[in-house]
Structure formats: C-alpha cells, structure tokens
C-alpha cells in the first residue's frame, strides 16, 4: 500500500495550525466579551434615560441624568442625555410659571377691599369650592383683624351657581367673622341663585341680605350712624 506523502501533514504544521486556531478562538472570545461589555454600557445608559423619563412622568422634576450619560462616547446617547436634561429644565421652568400664575390668580380672585372706614368688601366671582372657601375665610379674617373692621360686605354678584355646600361655606364665613365682632352682610344674590336657595331649603334668615353692594354700604353707614348717636354703652 503506497502512501501519499503530500496528504500527511507533519507534526510541526499541525501544531502551528492548532496554535493559530487557539489564538483565533481567544481573540473571538475577547471580541465577544468586549462587545458584551460595550453593549451593556449602552444598555445601562439607555436605562438611565428611561429611569429619568419615568421619574418625570411621575411628577418628579428634581432629576438629572448622570455625567456618564452626558460623557457617553456615543454622540447619539450623549445628545439624548442632554435633550432629556434640557426637557426637564424646561418643564421645571414651566411648572414654576404655572405656580406663580396660580398664586396671582388666587390673589386676584379673592380681593378684600377697604370700601369705607370700618367697612370691608369681598366680591366673590366664580365657583366656591371647599378649598377656595378656606382661602377666602383665611384672607378675610386676617384683613378683619388687621383693619379692625366692624362690617364686611360679602358680594356674590359674580357667583352664578350656589348649592348647599357653597351656601354652607358662606354661612361659616359669616359666623367666623361674627366671632371677631364683625357684622357680615350678604349682597348681590342673583334671581336664579335666590330661586335655587329657596328650592334646596337653605336658611339665610339669620343674616342680613341686601340687593346690591350699594345697598350693603348704605346699611353699614346707617348702622354706624346709629351706634354713633347711641354713644358707647356703659358696661
């Protein structure tokens, strides 16, 4: 049996090829590891962006993506991080603006006016819910104490709808003012509101109600005149 010498690789060649294969395998493993590491780095950066977005969606604006994201070697990711931070910054500014506007609206919606000596007027416009009623009460009572007013005219010309709750808020306000020694007069009840109050059975008999602000002021002036005529009551 003849042997083909050219088909028989010598040991040295086999060894060399084996070494080359091992080196290629090691290189492939290193490459795979490097790919895994870099792809995980990208995934972590993306995750951090998602986390920041999630926090913003939940209303937390005190959030910022880390410097790792902004320093990311990948331009796209770095831009994404910067865009996210800028968006959060803009949102924060808008929220501040909305808060400032809400505060301004709140102050404008419950103005307490010094109409005459010892007479304050509180024109109420719009809907009066529990929160607004509390704000009105707080503001009015503070003004009553500071200005030592004897009369308050609560003008509800601008209130289109009054239900039992709203009426209750007004009654509480009037009672609280009375505890501070101030007489409250309710003016400007619209015909539709008067009709509703009668229908729902709200009892306003314990308080003075008048047609409009002018009538309210006249009443206050007359009462002041009376008390001046009577003079101080000796205790």
């Amino acid at each position, binding site marked *: 049996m003849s042997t083909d010498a050219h088909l028989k690789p010598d040991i040295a060649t086999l060894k060399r090829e084996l070494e080359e294969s091992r080196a290629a395998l090691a290189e492939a493993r290193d490459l795979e590891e490097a790919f895994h590491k870099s*792809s995980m780095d990208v995934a972590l950066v993306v995750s951090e962006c998602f986390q920041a977005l999630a926090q913003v969606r939940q209303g937390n604006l005190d959030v910022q993506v880390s410097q790792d994201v902004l320093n990311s070697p990948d331009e796209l990711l770095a831009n994404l991080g910067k865009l996210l931070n800028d968006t959060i910054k803009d949102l924060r500014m808008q929220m501040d603006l909305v808060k400032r506007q809400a505060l301004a609206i709140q102050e404008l919606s419950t103005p307490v006016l010094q109409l005459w000596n010892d007479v304050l007027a509180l024109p109420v416009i719009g809907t009066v819910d529990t929160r607004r009623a509390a704000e009105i009460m707080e503001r009015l009572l503070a003004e009553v104490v500071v200005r030592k007013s004897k009369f308050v005219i609560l003008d509800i010309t601008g209130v289109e709808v009054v239900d039992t709750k709203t009426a209750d808020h007004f009654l509480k306000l009037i009672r609280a003012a009375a505890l501070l020694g101030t007489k409250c007069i309710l003016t400007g009840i619209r015909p539709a509101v008067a009709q509703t109050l009668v229908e729902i059975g709200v009892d306003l008999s314990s308080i003075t109600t008048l047609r409009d602000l002018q009538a309210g002021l006249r009443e206050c002036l007359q009462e002041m005149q009376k008390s001046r005529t009577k003079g101080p009551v000796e205790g």
Partner: protein
Amino acid sequence: MAEKSIDAKGLRCPQPVLKIAAKMPEMKAGDILIVEADCPTFEEDVRKWCERMKKTLLAVNTKGHAKTVQIQF
C-alpha cells in the same frame, strides 16, 4: 404594589436588559418585575443593571437554561 412580567426568552444580551429599561416608565416604587430569559449572561447583566439603577434584585431562579429574576422597583 403591582406585579408585571416580561418574557425575554430567545433574546441575546443586552436585549433582555433593554426590555427591562423600556418597562421602567410603567413601574412605580414597590412594584415587582418578573423577567424570564435564557441568555447566558442574563444573571450577570441583571445584577449589574440593578446595582446601577438602584433597584433590588429579590430572587434568581434557574430552570434548565432559563433564569427568572424578580426585581423590586
């Protein structure tokens, strides 16, 4: 406290982790995310992810080639 799950079987790294990231906006504090995957580096990747994102890895269960992890947000 809600429990949500992701089936990431058949996906290679870093896709399972990216799936978790994409789920983040839906998760609230205290919610638990259960993720099942069979990528060989999945457990290592999830541990790294939890550490970086400051989430708690509650459990890792092995079933054949697949691993199921529980992450608390």
